[in-house]
């Protein structure tokens, strides 16, 4: 605790740095995974190979990826941009499958009826498919968010500051309190972001909540 009392401004700064890496990476993952997942769901011939590729991508170890990305997109090696790009690769790889599963979980009868009463293809996406796929997609976003919060710490190895810096620094200088602080704050951040997503999900899918606790009228 004494270590934290003396160093909390630094921890706070690293926490902000951690968020600045996490939030854009998750946001970009969602933005990229939605159209890719939609495509994979609509065209299963494209979807199969796409999902296989996503799985392979997720299997690429983090350190090599952090070295390959600057070569591919021209970002400096020790930069937030490189880190965010790498995190986005993992995020998309995880999330594409959730998006495909989400669209696949939309009831066929509901889709058919929605088309029959006159939804255009765009109307189907925004008014029917996306809202109904949301619970499954959101479950994927939660996994990606927690995993990204964890992965961000690896950035410390290439010198991108985050809560991971507490771990590398603490190990090198043998300060146990610093390592513990890094672990605890990272886990707490993951839990808080996850809880925020759960709340957002409840706000975005009011029909699901009402179904569970709303009064069901038994008579006509």
């Amino acid at each position, binding site marked *: 605790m004494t270590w934290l009392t003396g160093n909390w401004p630094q921890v706070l700064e690293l926490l902000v740095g951690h968020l600045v890496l996490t939030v854009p990476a998750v946001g970009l993952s969602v933005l990229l995974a939605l159209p890719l997942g939609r495509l994979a769901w609509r065209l299963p011939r494209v979807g199969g190979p796409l999902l296989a590729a996503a799985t392979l991508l997720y299997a690429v170890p983090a350190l090599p990826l952090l070295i390959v990305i600057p070569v591919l997109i021209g970002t400096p090696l020790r930069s937030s941009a490189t880190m965010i790009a790498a995190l986005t690769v993992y995020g998309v790889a995880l999330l594409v499958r959730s998006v495909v599963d989400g669209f696949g979980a939309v009831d066929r009868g509901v889709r058919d009826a929605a*088309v029959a009463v006159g939804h255009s293809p765009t*109307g189907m996406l925004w008014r029917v498919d996306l809202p109904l796929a949301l619970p499954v997609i959101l479950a994927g976003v939660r996994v990606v968010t927690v995993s990204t919060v964890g992965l961000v710490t690896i950035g410390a190895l290439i010198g991108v500051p985050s809560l991971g810096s507490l771990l590398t620094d603490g190990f090198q200088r043998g300060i146990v309190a610093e390592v513990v602080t890094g672990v605890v704050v990272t886990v707490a951040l993951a839990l808080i972001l996850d809880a925020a997503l759960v709340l957002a999900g409840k706000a975005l899918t009011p029909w699901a909540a009402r179904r569970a606790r709303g009064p069901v009228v038994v008579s006509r």
Partner: protein
Amino acid sequence: MIEFEHVAKHYPDGTVAVRDFSLTVPSHRCVVLLGSSGSGKTTLLRMVNRMVDPTGGRVLIDDADVRDSDPVALRRSIGYVLQSGGLLPHRTVADNVATVPLLTGATRRAARSRALELLGRVGLDESLAQRYPAQLSGGQQQRVGVARALAADPNILLMDEPFGAVDPLVRRELQDELLRLQSDLGKTILFVTHDVDEAFRLGDEVIVLRPQAEIAQRGTSVEILAQPADDFVRGFIGADRGRRSLRLATSGGRQVAVDLEGHAVGILE
């Protein structure tokens, strides 16, 4: 007016849903397609709003080939009621009813007041407007489905076994409601069912279908009951099992109509 001109539907795997079907549905009438599953009746219905395109022949609405119209605009101009409602589970009752007005760009305010008016029209209380479909009973959901179909004030209503999933008592009420609505509104209705009693109650004309949408008989319920065209029709409407043959019995000074199996079906006034 809806016209089917020698329509056919062959699927790539060789299945024939409809072989060669022709029919005119006159304006402001209710025509019922009556057949068991596999008779192609739902396929015929879905050809009208282009959910299915025929592989042969054509479907005309007021002399215009539906194939020449944009499917989305066509579907918005036709009311469609399906079995089990087909409501959007994530939209409130009011939003479900207002689906088409909202899609065609009505203001939320206008769509909402239209929805409330229609809820009253189909016998639902306005207090249900903010509920979600899962919070309604099957019968209520069907009423919402009918209200949604009427929202854009279409000339044509397509009804695909709309009352098939509710219990007989509620079904009867919904049928009464439809008859009442129809006498007010005079829509052109194409109604699909496998329920003979429902067909006879609702249809100005009933088309009895064999497999592959071959017309076994067409006529009013009276004509079909009085003179079934053949054994198939006789079997389908139950004339061969004595259910449609009544005799009179006297009990307590009143004349009771009894079928050949001895079950009482009504009182002779």
